[in-house]
């Protein structure tokens, strides 16, 4: 009975937030749950189109494989590249370097829709987008032209490296050091829990070039294959297995000064600005997951019969 109770509460919540009331055929007493949340309410025509493409892509290219990706821990490179062909690789990156030039709201709508296919993969795609945007926004001409087109097409994949074993919430206390030696910085330290780490090609790394605190932090773009860059073991996770998570380790890793975004001391600023968007993206992913879950629950209620009736007909009486 507890399960029915919980599902009934979901159904009632669903019908309360339904904007259009629909009655089940032949039974005008019961609140209808045949129609559910319409996620395109309030969107412009163009946004509805973006959302439609994302929903279609999620349903056709992601949802059928989501379980396999999770079970076999597959990083779905080909599928993500297909998404990039539609413009999902650099959604809010400027078009002159291969991005789609859309707004944060458009991006949120797209990630929310993509997430209904696979949350874990969409979350990674959003991290990739965040990195591409940081290079697009804070990089100089050479950096933008070198990195952004490949990131927008997902020819190359990106990871965001801020967190360390000793600094999570207190990100500004990070320890990875970058010592200036001629036209290189030599990096030493490690980053923890990096999404995509080991399988991605471009690492946006926040490291300490100066003194303590946020003002001593700079942002460097490190490419896979750079000597001194290595990775920890793949972390064992419960869920979200379509993106690998690893430590990123720097041991006397020499990175060209030309790979520094902006000036020394600006890195923390860039990192936080990146996360401002990333936060919205991740929240959008969660909304998409919730949407898909409510739909699945609703469909189940209409189909599953116990005690001689569908669960949808077994709703608790309104008190």
């Amino acid at each position: 009975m507890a399960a029915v109770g919980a599902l009934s509460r979901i159904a009632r919540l669903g019908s309360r937030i339904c904007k259009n009331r629909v009655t089940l055929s032949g039974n005008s007493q019961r609140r209808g749950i045949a129609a559910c949340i319409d996620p395109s309410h309030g969107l412009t025509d163009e946004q509805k189109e973006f959302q439609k493409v994302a929903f279609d892509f999620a349903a056709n290219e992601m949802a059928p494989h989501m379980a396999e990706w999770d079970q076999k821990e597959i990083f779905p490179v080909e599928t993500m590249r297909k998404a990039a062909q539609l413009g999902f690789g650099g959604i809010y990156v400027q078009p002159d370097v291969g991005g789609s030039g859309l707004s944060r709201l458009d991006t949120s709508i797209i990630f929310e829709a993509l997430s209904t296919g696979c949350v874990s993969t969409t979350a990674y795609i959003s991290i990739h987008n965040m990195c591409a945007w940081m290079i697009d926004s804070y990089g100089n001409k050479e950096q933008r032209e070198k990195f952004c087109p490949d990131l927008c097409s997902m020819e190359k994949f990106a990871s965001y490296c801020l967190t360390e074993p000793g600094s999570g919430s207190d990100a500004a206390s990070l320890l990875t050091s970058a010592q200036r030696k001629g036209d290189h910085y030599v990096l030493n330290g490690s980053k923890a829990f990096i999404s995509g780490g080991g399988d991605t090609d471009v690492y946006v790394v926040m490291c300490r070039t100066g003194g303590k605190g946020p003002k001593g932090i700079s942002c460097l773009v490190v490419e896979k294959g750079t000597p001194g860059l290595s990775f920890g073991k793949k972390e064992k996770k419960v869920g979200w297995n379509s993106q690998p998570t690893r430590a990123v380790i720097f041991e006397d890793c020499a990175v060209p000064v030309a790979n520094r975004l902006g000036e020394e001391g600006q890195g923390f600023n860039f990192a936080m600005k990146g996360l401002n968007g990333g936060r919205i993206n991740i929240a959008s992913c969660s909304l998409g997951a919730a949407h898909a879950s409510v739909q699945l629950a609703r469909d189940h209620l209409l189909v599953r019969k116990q005690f001689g009736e569908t669960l949808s007909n077994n709703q608790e009486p309104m008190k």
Partner: protein
Amino acid sequence: MSGRVLVGVKRVIDYAVKIRVKPDNTGVVTDGVKHSMNPFCEIAVEEAVKLKEKKLIKEVVAVSCGPQQSQETIRTALAMGADRGIHVDVSGKDYENLGPLQVSKILAALAKQEDAQLILLGKQAIDDDCNQTGQMTAALLDWPQGTFASEVSLEGDKINLVREIDGGLEHIKINTPAVITADLRLNTPRYATLPNIMKAKKKKIVTVKPADLGVDVTSRLEVLKVEEPPQRQAGMKVETVEDLVVKLKEAGRV
């Protein structure tokens, strides 16, 4: 030859939605239900855009008959690569009663107005499954028709077509101008890309009324009742062939 192709696109209830009959049995529930472009119309649009990409035709015009929301369907066609759209505004009771005969009259009038070389339609709509509009349009225009097309190739001013029919595959050659209806295996429709969706914003959709085209949309049909199909009954197993024949005779089937 104008090099212009008209593609008809219909806004229907999305194929994934579970259809519910209205309590008053006058139709199905459409309010608040997800709608999208008829899948066979998507295939038609894709074929038209492919022909344009091969430079065999010059312009793709997407046409939809219905209320204001039909413009969303035209926009999807524009995002897939159609050049402009024509929205034939039909709403209210007229829209509820709109059927293949009226639509084909509208398409015939538009084909003449736009000097179309080709009309591409889906073979049928997934809501009424009529499979009539293409055929009627061709008859009204006295044009050849290539229905259930699974392969289309243009050869000069003729079209080579492969049709999927009950007996297998039929190869025909028809003159242009012509009407073609798309079957499932003709192509796989593309996703609209984000840049194409943004380009589509600049493409024009013109709204016209059936009366402007000289078409009377009054229906000669009246829907009396819409019901759900009967619930499937359980079958039964029998032990011997004799038992089977007895049961069939009892049921009056033999």
